[in-house]
């Protein structure tokens, strides 16, 4: 099987796809690419199906050796990308020859980068998905020396379509959360009229926001939550749940981001601001 070898791992490299949506009743998180729009773009450039597994890189990429010819596309956060030390463009189909080395540097915009490959990465599928999640898949992230299989090269990857990345907006579109109506008017106004700052506490499970809202609501009996659910904790902190979030939670759910906005918030860097707009 063709494979890439991780010569140097990035900050947190993992294989991701559309996630394991069918096993929520077992308490299994969805997982999947944090920025689904960018992963879709990478797969579309290669004429892959949108559920093909991609390599997700967080903040900084690594160095990857290809065993056989293939084609790849790199999307998401911007970074310096080279193939055998030659600078290459993102958001484009790139031909790769046997023995070539891809190197991806530090993200200069956004947080998550994606490498799609012709036919997709072929790691073990567990509960209907290849997405890495510690405790479900063998590993949570890739390390130096790991090999990842990919599909053999075919020429069906070529497409004439000209795919372009979707722009990022600071406004996040939301549904009123299940407990939104339990907030008083002042709390609701504060939630919808404040520009919130992305705090340094973020990961694949959740993004915390800096500005607080006083909270007088009681904790909930454990209730279902989804990626994109915005919770208000007892001390007034807002937490935006992301792809690896648990399936239930006990904090009031004040907002729910729409699918596109979940991908948008994933690319917001520490210190940048977001606004919530209720649909």
């Amino acid at each position: 099987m063709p494979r890439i070898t991780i010569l140097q791992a990035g900050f947190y490299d993992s294989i991701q796809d559309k996630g394991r949506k069918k096993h929520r009743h077992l308490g299994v998180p969805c997982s999947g690419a944090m920025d689904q729009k960018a992963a879709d773009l990478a797969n579309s450039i290669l004429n892959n199906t949108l559920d093909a597994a991609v390599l997700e890189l967080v903040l900084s990429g690594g160095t990857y050796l290809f065993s056989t010819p293939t084609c790849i596309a790199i999307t998401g956060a911007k970074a310096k990308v080279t193939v055998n030390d030659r600078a290459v463009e993102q958001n484009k189909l790139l031909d790769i020859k046997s023995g070539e080395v891809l190197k991806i540097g530090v993200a200069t915009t956004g947080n998550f980068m994606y490498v799609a490959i012709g036919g997709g990465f072929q790691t073990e599928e567990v509960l209907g998905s290849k997405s890495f999640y510690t405790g479900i898949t063998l590993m949570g992230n890739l390390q130096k020396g790991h090999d990842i299989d990919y599909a053999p090269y075919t020429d069906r990857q070529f497409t004439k379509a000209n795919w372009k990345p979707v722009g990022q907006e600071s406004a996040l579109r939301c549904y009123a959360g299940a407990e939104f109506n339990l907030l008083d008017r002042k709390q609701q106004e504060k939630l919808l009229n404040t520009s919130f700052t992305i705090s340094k506490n973020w990961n694949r499970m959740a993004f915390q926001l800096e500005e607080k809202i006083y909270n007088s609501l009681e904790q909930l009996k454990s209730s279902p939550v989804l990626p994109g659910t915005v919770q208000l904790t007892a001390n007034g902190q807002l937490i935006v749940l992301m792809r690896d979030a648990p399936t239930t939670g006990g904090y009031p759910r004040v907002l729910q981001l729409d699918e596109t906005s979940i991908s948008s918030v994933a690319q917001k860097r520490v210190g940048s601001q977001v606004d919530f707009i209720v649909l």
Partner: protein
Amino acid sequence: MPKHQITYHIYSEKALLISWEEQTLDIISKRTTAEHQIKKLFKEEVYINQGAYSLLVVTELEMDHHVVIDLIDKRLQSKKLLEPTTSLWKLPILYDIEKSLTETLKPSCDVNEIISIHNSSVYVVDFVGFLPGFPYLKGLDSRLQLPRKTTPALKVAAGSVAVSNEYCGIYPTSSPGGWHVLGNCPLPFFDIHRVAPNLLQAGDQVQFYAVSQEEHDQLTTQLETGKVALENFKSHA
């Protein structure tokens, strides 16, 4: 049959939240019946997970929420309750009670009393959530009901039986956690290699019995080598 007090909330473009009033009786049967009916309605094209008094319906299909709510509501108001087929589990536990519990409960309850209170209840699996395979067990004696720890422990071991608020839960894998640990059960509660990865299902009954360190270690080995089958801990409720 009295009309169920059910509310519907449009959760997102592809999700609908169905809630019952808190303290609704027979809530597990009501949720199970609703889940069954909704799956029939959508011909299995839905993913449903349960919380204490609600369930979340997620579909990949395009949905007109109001049409879907009408369809679901008609079914839920008219159908009889299903009684889920359930098992009774007798689970071994090596008690090793955390200070956070003993300190809070003394002097009214000493370690032996905590153990006897904990293993004299019959628990019912309310739902699974939080972590893969983590069961929320109803039926915890009010004397053992404590709020979650203010600072969660960085690592709670796999198999830890723990309590928080009105629930007793079991950590299937090691994880950070804020529940107060009472002891350890050697059974594998979640295994992706099983046809049904979760050991316990909503509606199952659970009783605990105390074992010694030696018995616990022996069971761990016997379970790992297949000398003792999981079926041995289960009977029909």
